[in-house]
């Protein structure tokens, strides 16, 4: 191995470093270190003249290791690696030392000590640099297909846009039917069209699109790979019914099982064999495995032999270039707030949507769940479960939805008294019109404050809402036939598991975290994984559609590229030392280790992120991480505590 010839370049970074650390002193010190044949300083190493200094020195002094002591590697490691490359030196023979964020910036009041620390850091870097080896990056092809997880309005839109662009799309949906939460809504906007009228064409297009393959009753089991080459394992649960189904309904009649109908938010019951609403997509009934007792009556009565109760679940494997996560959100189920659960006429907004829907249990007529009669007085309570200590965020769309519904109720029945109890009315943008129209049509708005919450009280079978009206400074007692709680929109309970499968995280509000809140709302920190719609945060149908298109656009750019470069900082197994104990396989957070045919650990270098946990855990010291070898790190550590190591 060639004798290391180290060049050390210390940056002043204007006054950022030079104003605290005595840079020339550090350079002089560097010159005393073993194997250092050249050292100098410059005001801005990352500038062109600074870079040229390095390049010239590499040539003139035949340097085969370069150290730049400057800012954080996250700023300029790539810059200086390129400089080395351009000068003919392998970029991984470069080491960066952070004497700014880790030294001058944090010890700005102790220049002497900071200078000593800078010297220590440089000495450590030199110790490591001696043991650096040249490495080469890998180029990988991008699979020209996409996986969209979620078959609601967001996932459907993303799938269509990618497919129209010319890419193959696999769309997976956990439920047996498409459409998500949007199918439960009556309308998306005030005086808007019926939700089914808007969603049906979208679902038709997806099911008939030649480039989209839809997998229902399916969920993600395992994720592997990296951008351009994700391998996703899907479990497809059985539906038990095939396309022969004519929706004749005989099976539903004969099914003996009754369960709560979650599509209608438990307002009514359904059978174990069901379709959530008439003419859902696809037009095939489904069997709820949790409810079904496998009695077989449906199979017998089916004329077209569409039912097979022995259908098994299957595992499918997809290889895709990009993933768009569009799994949506859930509606909060109030626990004790406002006596929810104690009276059938205290309902949530989502339940109201079902009562107002033409596809719902009352055919769209607003009737009280308790007695089936029309309500004469309706009270909405906003911010139920949102803007609290337990859940500080605002659910964004409930003000607009509630007011849209309040208006609808009043419009249909001008004699009904409608009240909206609120903290702030957040009908932002053009939705302010909803608030104006609602007031004009005679909806009453009453402001309450967080320290004096309204109370819903049972008076025999009647309900009464008492609220302290801040404006009037009085407590009002409102008799209510129907109380609607505008519940929060919450992240799915399985969101954190799904996120961890992809290596992305959740924000403090529990929704998926984007790469940059302002400029990258649909990208994540994992290249190739995008998010859109309700899983990123509560939003309206329109806003979800916008994010779906945006995610499709970002994904398209990647897919169209065709190739991507991957860093060579990966783990390597010494097969002679490996005893096949499997510890590395267990501890690897990226599932990058497997046992090969002879039982020895094998690293998938494409998946490996070079974190080093395997190397640290291996009892036989059989694993090395390229660019972070034991030799390199040990040398660096020893140099930290001892003055100089003689090689």
């Amino acid at each position, binding site marked *: 191995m060639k004798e290391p010839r180290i060049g050390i370049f210390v940056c002043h970074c204007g006054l950022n470093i030079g104003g605290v650390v005595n840079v020339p002193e550090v350079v002089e010190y560097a010159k005393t270190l073993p194997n250092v044949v050249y050292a100098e300083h410059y005001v801005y190493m990352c*500038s*062109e*003249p600074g870079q040229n200094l390095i390049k010239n020195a590499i040539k003139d002094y035949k340097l085969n290791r370069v150290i730049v002591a400057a800012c954080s590697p996250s700023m300029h490691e790539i810059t200086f690696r390129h400089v080395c490359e351009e000068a003919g030196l392998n970029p991984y023979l470069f080491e960066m030392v952070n004497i700014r964020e880790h030294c001058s910036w944090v010890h700005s009041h102790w220049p002497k000590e900071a200078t000593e620390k800078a010297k220590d850091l440089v000495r450590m870097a030199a110790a490591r640099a001696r043991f650096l080896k040249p490495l080469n990056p890998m180029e990988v092809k991008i699979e020209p297909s996409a996986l969209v997880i979620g078959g609601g*309005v967001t996932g459907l*839109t993303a799938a269509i*846009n990618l497919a*129209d*662009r010319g890419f193959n799309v696999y769309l997976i949906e956990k439920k047996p039917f498409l459409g998500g939460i949007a199918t439960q809504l009556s309308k*998306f*906007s005030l005086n808007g069209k019926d939700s089914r009228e*808007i*969603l049906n064409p*979208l679902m038709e297009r997806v099911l008939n699109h030649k480039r989209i393959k839809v997998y229902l009753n399916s969920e993600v089991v395992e994720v592997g790979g990296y951008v351009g080459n994700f391998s996703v394992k899907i479990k497809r649960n059985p539906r038990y019914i095939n396309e022969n189904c004519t929706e004749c309904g005989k099976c539903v009649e004969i099914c003996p099982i009754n369960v709560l109908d979650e599509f209608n938010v438990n307002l009514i019951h359904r059978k174990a064999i069901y379709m959530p609403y008439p003419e859902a997509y696809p037009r095939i009934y489904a069997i709820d495995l949790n409810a079904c007792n496998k009695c077989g009556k449906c199979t017998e009565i089916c004329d077209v032999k569409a039912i097979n109760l022995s259908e098994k679940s299957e595992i499918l494997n997809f290889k895709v270039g990009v993933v768009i996560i569009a799994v949506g959100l859930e509606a909060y189920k109030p626990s004790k707030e406002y006596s929810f659960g104690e009276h059938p006429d205290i309902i949530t907004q989502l339940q109201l949507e079902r009562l107002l829907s033409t596809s719902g249990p009352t055919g769209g007529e607003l009737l009280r769940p308790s007695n089936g009669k029309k309500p004469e007085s309706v009270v909405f309570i906003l911010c139920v479960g949102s*803007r609290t200590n337990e859940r*500080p*965020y*605002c659910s*964004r769309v409930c*003000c607009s939805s509630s007011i849209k519904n309040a208006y609808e109720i009043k419009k249909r029945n001008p004699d009904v008294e409608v009240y909206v109890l609120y903290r*702030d*009315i*957040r*009908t*932002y*943008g*053009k*939705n*302010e*019109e909803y608030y*104006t129209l609602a007031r004009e049509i005679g909806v009453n708005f009453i*402001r309450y*404050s967080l320290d004096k919450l309204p109370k819903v009280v049972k008076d025999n079978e009647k309900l009464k809402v008492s609220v302290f009206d*801040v*404006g009037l*400074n009085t407590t009002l007692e409102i008799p209510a036939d129907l109380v609607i709680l505008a519940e929060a929109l919450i992240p799915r309970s399985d969101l954190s598991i799904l996120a961890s499968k992809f290596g992305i995280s959740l924000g*403090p*509000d529990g*929704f998926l975290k984007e790469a940059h*809140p*302002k*400029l*990258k*709302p*649909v990208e994540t920190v994992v290249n190739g994984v995008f998010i859109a719609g309700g899983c990123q*945060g509560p939003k*309206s149908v*329109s*806003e979800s*559609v*916008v*994010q*779906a*298109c*945006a*995610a499709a*656009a*970002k994904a*398209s*750019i990647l897919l*169209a590229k065709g190739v991507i470069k991957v860093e060579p900082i990966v783990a390597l197994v010494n097969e002679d030392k490996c005893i096949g104990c499997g510890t590395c396989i267990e501890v690897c957070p990226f599932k990058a280790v497997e046992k090969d045919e002879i039982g020895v650990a094998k690293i998938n270098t494409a998946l490996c992120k070079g974190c080093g946990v395997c190397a640290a855990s291996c009892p036989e010291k059989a694993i090395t991480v390229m660019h972070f070898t034991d030799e390199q790190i040990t040398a660096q550590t020893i140099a930290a505590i001892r003055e100089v190591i003689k090689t």
Partner: protein
Amino acid sequence: MIEEPRIGVFVCHCGLNIAGVIDVEALTEYAKTLPHVVYAEHNRYMCADTGQNLIKEAIKKYKLNRVIVAACSPRLHEPTFRRCVSEAGLNPYLLEMANIREHCSWCHSDYPEKATEKAKDILRMAVARAALLQPLTTIKSPVTKRALVIGGGITGINVALSLANMGFEVHLVEKNPSIGGHMAQLDKTFPTLDCSACILTPKMVDVSRHPNIKLYTYSEVVNVEGYVGNYKVRILKKPRYVDESKCTGCGVCAEHCPIEVPNEFDMGLKLRKAIYVPFPQAVPLKYTIDIDNCIKCKACERVCQTKAIDFDQKEEILKIYVEAIVIAVGFNVFDAEKLKEYGYGRFKNVITSLELERLLNAAGPTCGHIIRLSDGKVPKRIAFIQCVGSRDARIGKTYCSSVCCMYAVKNAMLIKEHLENVKVYIFYIDLRAYGKGFEEFYKRAEKEFGIKFICGRVARIEEDYKTGNLKIMFENLDEGVISTLECDLVILSVGLTPSEETIRISDIFGLKIDDCGFFMSKNEINPVESTTQGIFFAGCSLAPKDIPDSVAEASAAAMKAINYIVSGG
């Protein structure tokens, strides 16, 4: 056969930008001593026609096969000089630029001797490299899909970049002399408190450098013909009276211009010359003459060394053919003078939120100091008034401007950080902190920063003529009383109105406008498409919204436009 390098060195004075610090004569003489250099000379403006002709002639006369131009940053003129040497028959990659301006004269202006030595070093390095340069050929790929983007703010910029990154030819038209829009005027953005310019300007530079984007600034779309999927668009390039191909952005003209007028970019709080760039990071960095205020003294013309001033310049009509159009014309700010009861325009210490942004900004009229414009004093009691020009049926602006609650909270926090012992009040009707992280930001402002939120509309403001202080009369809905508050600075949270371009553009393209004056999209499931095929919208053209929503719509519109184009229209 490797030929012997014959290097020509051309040192630019760049007016006084370089020559005012570096001894260009000595530099040129030094160049002559370097290996392989057979010719060296210097000139006032190398990028000008005269300078370029010098280079071309020298190439021919002295049979140069390598050219070095020691001047400004390659970012400005490398393409210029590459073209220049090409025209003289030399491969463009046999050109080397040495930056002795940004990397030398501009940063070492106090040390002329050392700067000259450094310039010599830089030149020597360039010569060493140039000797080893090899001819290269550019790789051309055909681009046949074309789109027009109207509007160069954050939304238009993102649409253009999305389209260009997908391989489409983009024509981006911006009516102002620079792209950047209103986001360039902001100090920090909510709720992350990112520096607005820091996240915007790299995108602006990306636009200017993207090979697939053709940028037309100080230009407007005036006409469209043709049919769906096959639009012939006429763009009017307004006369800058400055030749963009010659202007180097050196600024000598502005130094000599005798006319000062309020700078629109700083909301009129700072002055600019009649010949100007709107802000230092403008893209493109080319001067423009505000002909309405110009007195035609022609001082600029006399001092411009590249002869870039052209008072005979006429407006140009350019024709382009595109298959899809994305409209991203943004918004205007509500004119607060329309609400007489707040005294804007009469009371000096009643300012708008955008004026406050400029005061907060370190590059603004007060270098980031919050002071009263009447007397320069530091305010002790500041009041924000929400919904000025929004949610107001009296003036026909019934919609909500979406961002004012949040920007007021953000600015209130920044003021609290800047000033000690300042009391800040926000008068609101509904506090609309609806987005991701918004409510948490609002609560932080209230609890950690002690900003006082008062629910109640402000009825009127009166001024104490002697002190310039203001008395706010309002209804406190929480306490059910009518009250007054005296403060020394009032900030009106003005709403976002439709851009003045909306009506004109809707006429040209036959597009629908809603009651609020914004463009109308097709429906809720097609939020960025217009009812006319091939035309799309994004950002505040449709309705007031914040930056993340605008950015998402920009990508969405780009996706829709591309799918429209590839599907054959």
